[in-house]
């Protein structure tokens, strides 16, 4: 047994476990997650921003009580920031210390001050190397977040890593994972990720949740909110997703908004409070301007 504890009994068990940690997954996600863990494949999550892609990895780490290692992708991400880098300042200091030490006369050990500066002591382990590090006693969760932001070059490197879970450092040798990490990859689809990479993964598109699921999420994540208010919030947001907006509100926005309304001690939604808090739901000024006019009628449709 490579991973004795880090697995789910069944698809249903996966869904229930996540729910017990307040993550409401749809059946497709529960199935995908179960299979990804069971078969040792990465889970590739795509979806609009704010639907809870990153959250899956966080919840999974809690479910398995295992460390979460996160690699946030960005433009220009390279091997030195994703895998490892030598600690140059420390290396320089070490060289200097040794050479001044040897000038002082007390020659201990080697004459070569650069000996042993390419050892693990001087190695900065970046997320991907951390993930295959042998110090873990169970499989960690490796979250590769927003892969679409990294350059294409990085993808091909990732493809290599995913096939054998080992990293070769010329000065040290090949490091191999003892416990293969459970990998979650997310993408906001600002560009298409290469098919070769996707095919190695279990793919799941996270959609906006249904009205019932979203209500359940609000209830769990923003406790203490009047039930009627939660219903209205979710009904309004769901309506909003049918509107012609530059960016539709995700679940994250619903939760922010619900929390804000909770702080404002709102009991029911009314046009005034909606308009004054639109900034929490909509991320573009153009959308806010548009909704300032239309919100009252949308609200009316949503809550009758």
């Amino acid at each position: 047994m490579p991973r004795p504890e880090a697995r789910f009994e069944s698809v249903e068990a996966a869904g229930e476990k996540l729910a017990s940690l307040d993550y409401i997954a749809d059946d497709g996600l529960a199935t995908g997650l179960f299979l990804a863990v069971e078969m040792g494949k990465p889970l590739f999550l795509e979806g609009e921003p704010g639907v809870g892609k990153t959250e899956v990895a966080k919840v999974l780490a809690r479910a398995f009580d295992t460390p979460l290692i996160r690699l946030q992708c960005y433009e220009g991400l390279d091997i030195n920031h994703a895998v490892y880098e030598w600690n140059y300042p420390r290396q320089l200091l070490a060289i200097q210390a040794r050479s001044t030490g040897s000038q002082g006369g007390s020659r201990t050990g080697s004459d070569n001050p650069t000996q042993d500066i390419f050892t693990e002591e001087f190695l900065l382990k970046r997320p991907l190397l951390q993930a295959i590090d042998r110090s873990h006693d169970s499989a960690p969760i490796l979250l590769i977040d927003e892969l679409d932001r990294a350059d294409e070059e990085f993808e091909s490197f990732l493809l290599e890593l995913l096939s054998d879970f080992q990293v070769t450092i010329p000065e040290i040798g090949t490091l191999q994972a003892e416990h293969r990490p459970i990998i979650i990859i997310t993408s906001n689809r600002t560009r298409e990720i290469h098919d070769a990479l996707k095919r190695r993964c279990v793919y799941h598109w996270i959609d906006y949740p249904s009205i019932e699921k979203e209500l359940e999420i609000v209830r769990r994540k923003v406790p203490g909110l009047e039930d009627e208010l939660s219903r209205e919030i979710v009904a309004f947001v769901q309506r909003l997703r049918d509107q012609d907006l530059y960016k539709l509100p995700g679940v994250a926005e619903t939760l922010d908004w619900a929390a804000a309304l909770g702080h404002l001690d709102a009991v029911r939604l009314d046009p005034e409070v909606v308009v004054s808090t639109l900034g929490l739901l909509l991320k573009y000024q153009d959308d806010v301007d548009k909704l300032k006019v239309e919100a009252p009628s949308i609200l009316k449709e949503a809550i009758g």
Partner: protein
Amino acid sequence: MASPFLANLLLFGRTLRRAGFPVSHSQTLDLARALELVDIGDREQVFHAARGFLVSRREELALFALLFDRFWRKHSIGDSAPGRKAPPAPRHDPEAIQRFRDVSYLSARAGAGDTEIELRDRSQTYSDDEVFQHKDFSRMSAEELAELRRLILEMRWRASLRRTRRWSEDRGGSRVYLRRMLRDAAKHGGAPLHLARRSPKTKRRPVVLLADVSGSMEKYARIILQFFYGALHGLGAGDVECFVFGTRLTRITSSLRIRNVDRALEDAAGEILDWSGGTRIGESLGIFNRHWARRVLRRGAVVVIVSDGWERGDVADLGREIRHLHHRCHRLIWLNPHVGRPGYEPLVEGMVAALPYIDDFLPIHNLQSLRALADALASLPSRKSIRRLPAAR
């Protein structure tokens, strides 16, 4: 696992491939393994497992659900249902066929009068000819258009450079390259003999081309597509996106990628329903802003819009969308075939609404203007402009 089941699975994989899904055998085998793990009596679980392994794009989800449903309805409960051999692929969709007919007619019309004559031997005279350089596209004869086409293909396109966030070694670089220095130093017993330097790498900017192909622009449409085709291949296919619009927006990047000009133009015409419809520039740009902008306006993209600004929709919409677009690209270039005409002033309502947000307002009516555009694209300033340039004459 029961072997009829596996056979069905392979058959299903084949069905998907026929419908255009890029399903590999290894994916099918992965799924076979996965199905041993889930509850095979639970249709939902089987569906979700199959989707997780066989689908890798959002666009494929709906079609997959349909195919899955049909296939397993037919194959699971015996073979009693006398189904068709395979579910129809999207290309057999009658609506699509009708659309194809519409456009083949329209493209034939747009192409009428274009006789295919190669004029290689006379090219020298044409390309040097001042009159030809400055002749308005709309007044060219078929022969001249053919020559123009060849010259457009020969033009060299280069997008200007932008700094990336990656570094590479560069002797004249401004920063010290510690990584290289330490490697070197290790060879010389720790003495850093050589001061390595680095500088940021540069890359070409992505370019997004959007052309109006509606009624008032019809006579320029083919030449514009020709220009798109040339630019697409000249700039390197990965970094150019092409769209056309009239009453709606169509992405034609993939059809223009096909290597042969005529085929590409034919195909592009096949995707455009709008040759000579009315223009809804604001609405089309709105669709671009909502559905494409986040995906194609990456990394300091340059946007080029070709239109005369005749807007049939709401001019206020156009103003809003162009402002949104302006804020999200590195530079917004608007090409208008009338700009080069003596005495032209941008008085059309749509043009007036758009002008405040345009960085460069340039002509596109003759070969010379196209060359000027190529130069402009290759030498854009690296900073985003705050203030728009004065409109070109």
